[in-house]
């Protein structure tokens, strides 16, 4: 279970998160939508203390931290409850695929090397990369790299996996393979928070959809509620803008 209370964060005096309250149940898949700059990434990063919130409370599992008094040790403990999949993969460049997945297990979880290896191979098989164990990230396509990123997170068996636009750096033809891996693990009951612009994915996979704008959660609901009957004008306009582009050819094209 995840519980956020009154999470606030400012950068150079501009408030990016204006007191976020959010509860996520175990096994729930939550997607976060919202325009660029609305604070989605910052919210994820506050959850695992890559960014230290200015105020509020963060709870993941049984670990509860008052962000204003958080010690380094508490931040590390909270961080070990979660794992993250990055927009730009951020695979360890000097380590092979297998080593990338094993690294966190050995170093942070203190799993024995042999067990770490066994487990990593299993997870890599699940994301379809059993034949790339000894490749370096630079030798993989973006889609393959992101699948390693997912395996790295999955192997840690965390309370929650945080996805920050996991497909937005990928070439269009590679998006599918990554989304299908995420879908598979979503069905296995792993708690996930996914920031994404893939609307059909959000509709299909999420238990709950949040819409963020200007540092607040404007609206939340089931995919059905958000996509078909948004209550807020801001949500409606955002969804229209996102889907509108694909429905109507751009004006310029019609003039020519």
């Amino acid at each position, binding site marked *: 279970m995840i519980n956020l209370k009154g999470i606030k964060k400012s950068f150079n005096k501009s408030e990016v998160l204006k007191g976020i309250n959010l509860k996520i149940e175990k096994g729930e898949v939550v997607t976060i939508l919202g325009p660029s700059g609305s604070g989605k990434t910052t919210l994820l990063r506050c959850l695992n203390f890559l960014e230290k919130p200015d105020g509020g409370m963060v709870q993941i599992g049984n670990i509860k931290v008052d962000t204003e008094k958080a010690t380094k040790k508490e931040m590390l403990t909270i*961080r070990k409850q979660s794992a993250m999949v*990055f927009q730009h993969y*951020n695979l*360890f460049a000097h380590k092979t695929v297998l080593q990338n997945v094993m*690294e*966190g297990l050995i170093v942070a979880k203190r799993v024995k090397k042999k067990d770490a290896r066994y487990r990593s191979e299993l997870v890599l098989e699940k994301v379809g990369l059993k034949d790339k164990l000894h490749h370096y990230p630079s*030798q993989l396509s973006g889609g393959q790299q992101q699948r390693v990123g997912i395996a790295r997170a999955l192997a*840690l068996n965390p309370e929650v996996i945080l996805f920050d636009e996991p497909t937005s750096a990928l070439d269009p033809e590679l998006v599918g393979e990554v989304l299908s891996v995420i879908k598979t693990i979503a069905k296995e009951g792993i708690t996930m928070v996914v920031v994404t612009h893939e609307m059909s994915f959000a509709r299909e996979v999420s238990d709950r959809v949040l819409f963020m704008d200007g540092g607040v959660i404007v609206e939340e609901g089931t995919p059905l509620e958000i996509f078909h009957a948004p209550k807020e004008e801001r949500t409606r306009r955002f969804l229209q803008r996102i889907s509108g582009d694909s429905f109507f050819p751009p004006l310029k094209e019609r003039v020519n």
Partner: protein
Amino acid sequence: MTIDIPFIWTAFKEIIKSLPITLILTLVPLAIGFLIGLTVALVRIYKTRFLYQAANGYVSFFRGTPIIMHIMVIYYGIPLLIDQVSSKFDLNIQTNKIPIILFVLIALSLAAGAYLSEIIRSGIISVSTGQLEAAYSVGMTKYQAMFRIVLPQALALSIPNFTNLFVGFLHTSSIAFLVSEKELTGAANIVASTNLKFLEAFIAAGIVYWGLTIMVEGISFLLEKKVTSYSRGGVS
């Protein structure tokens, strides 16, 4: 005055005997300097209180003054210091028994530490923050992330800079001849003045240094290719 070409070979054979001293004067300072440089770089990266200012001052001063100054100040300064201390406590240390090479090694190590700290620091900075964040995201501590993820990449990226510094210090060791160290240049100077064939002797010394440099650069090239193979894609 004509050039006595056969004498270049004679001089070469004589000078090359001093190669071990030049190598000691190059390798020892770089090894000690690496430890100093790594420590200082981390102090500067983490902005450790109090130490931070001292580290910055150390790097700035040693990089901002000619290395011959470091050698001279230490060569004249340390014996003076020891004399004072030993006369105060009746230790009876004879400073003139301390081999000169020790002073040179201390001076060069301090200088190497300053230059290496700058190289290591910029190597660390050039590793993307994404690597650090990924390390944190799998639950590593600051220390683990630095030593397991960032530093290995930073050091690999810095190989060309290390090579330049290696060559720089190989050449800088020639200054030691000014405090009558008998390394390559010192040996060349002796050969030159005993035979009054200055040009030939220094040509021979130049060839030795040149050959060494080309070797060092070749080795470094191969090493870099091996160590940074992870960053070259396409072999899938």
